[in-house]
């Protein structure tokens, strides 16, 4: 095997048509960055679910005119309920001070709310947070209960948005991926055409097929690799500049950390996918292009 021969062919091939090579690399990069972003959302949502669902509480809000008896009866029922892990009672004053703390940045809002306007409540942690419906049924109809609110409902809306983002990212990744593969096929066709004399002579003197095809396949694979590295670089920039700087300072503790190890694993996976698919696309193009 003449490595120098093959490598110089690859280099000539990539620089022969620079604009096409750039288009090919950029499309690949965008496709893979979006694929990575989609994968990231999947893992992050999974982590957030783990993180939050078991921290979630069901709030049972009492009516304004709830009696002490009704309150005690509810407290007893909660204490003996096997669904319930533990219960915290919050009276009106506590609710008001928590409210003031939460909205200390909007003093007008705090001023307009009277301390006794906020309902007292039981904050209930369930043994199995997915059994929310059961708990709601059991307590919503009891005397003195205004309504039962599950925080999960709110989170599910957030996860719904994230799921849509993920699907969107993956669909665009797919479309871009197809475009990238078509561009690779096109580049290889151009390369094969501009080297048709060499290829004809190689076939004539009995060069083996893989020797003829290897420079083209490597050319495609190399472009794929460069695209993968660029796409991965985009993910790194997004993590550093957007997620770490902005999201985390805004929502500390809400969004699980996007770990660097995830990015470390992402690079070989993206590069592997890119090399494999683009090499395959190049090779398939050749199979239909160069007859033996």
């Amino acid at each position: 095997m003449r490595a120098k021969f093959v490598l110089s062919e690859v280099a000539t091939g990539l620089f022969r048509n620079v604009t096409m090579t750039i288009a090919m690399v950029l499309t690949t990069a965008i496709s893979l960055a979006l694929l990575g972003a989609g994968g990231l959302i999947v893992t992050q949502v999974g982590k957030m679910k783990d993180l939050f669902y078991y921290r979630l509480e069901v709030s049972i809000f009492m009516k304004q005119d709830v009696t002490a008896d009704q309150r005690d009866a509810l407290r007893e029922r909660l204490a003996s309920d096997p669904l319930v892990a533990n219960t915290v009672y919050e009276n009106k004053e506590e609710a008001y001070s928590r409210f003031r703390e939460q909205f200390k940045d909007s003093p007008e809002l705090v001023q307009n709310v009277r301390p006794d306007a906020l309902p007292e409540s039981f904050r209930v942690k369930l043994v199995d947070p997915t059994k929310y419906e059961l708990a709601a049924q059991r307590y919503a109809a009891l005397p003195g209960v205004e309504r039962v609110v599950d925080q999960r409902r709110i989170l599910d809306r957030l996860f719904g948005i994230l799921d849509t983002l993920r699907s969107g990212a993956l669909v665009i990744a797919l479309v871009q991926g197809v475009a990238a593969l078509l561009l690779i096929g096109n580049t290889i066709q151009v390369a094969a055409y501009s080297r048709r004399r060499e290829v004809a002579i190689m076939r004539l003197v009995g060069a083996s097929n893989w020797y003829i095809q290897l420079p083209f396949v490597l050319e495609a694979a190399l472009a794929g690799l460069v695209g993968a590295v660029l796409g991965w670089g985009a993910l790194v920039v997004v993590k550093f500049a957007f997620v770490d700087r902005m999201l985390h300072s805004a929502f500390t503790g809400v969004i699980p950390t996007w770990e660097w190890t995830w990015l470390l694993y992402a690079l070989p996976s993206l590069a592997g996918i890119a090399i494999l698919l683009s090499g395959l696309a190049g090779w398939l193009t050749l199979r239909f292009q160069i007859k033996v």
Partner: protein
Amino acid sequence: MITLDRVTKAYGKGGRPALDDVSVNVDKGEFVFFIGPSGSGKSTFIKLLLKEEAPSRGKVVVAGRDLSHLRKWKVPQLRRSIGCVFQDFRLLPNKTAAENVGFALEVIGKPREVIRRVVPEVLQLVGLEGKEERRPDELSGGEQQRVAIARAFVNRPLVLLADEPTGNLDPDTSIEIMRLLDRINRTGTTVVMATHDSNIVNQMRRRVVELDRGRIVRDQARGVYG
């Protein structure tokens, strides 16, 4: 060395086949002219020997290989035992004479030392010493064909196929090229040459196989163009 057994080759459906029920045998070391007008089947014959085309019917055997049973991935092996020369030389314009010859060895994976040793030898054999570093556009037609012959012969093939090798050359140059092919033939290489150059056929007095519309109409030892 080469055997065609009742070979028919038709391109597409209908129409006259390019080769029609042809049987011929060429022994090792022979020098054979295949003559006939354009469209008589000479080029198809050469394509069949290289397995660039497969026969519609019949059997083709080259250097002991039955080509109908030859696996696709073994076709390169077959072609390494066949040297090819064409009317249009088919040299790489951006490579020197030596590089053109070396390319044929390079792409079949010969080591660099072998190439460095063998290429000057074969260029000397074809009479191009001193012109190794010239590019095709700095060589005359006859010299370019010598480079092509050197490339075809450098790997010491069993068979040399020449498709109208003198078609682009003047009569004097053509005769020099024929002398060269004759010399190669004397090393034991079987030479098959397709041509319609009657002068050359008449001067050489070798075996002549005449094709007409895909059929063999004459097979004569020490023949003339007719």
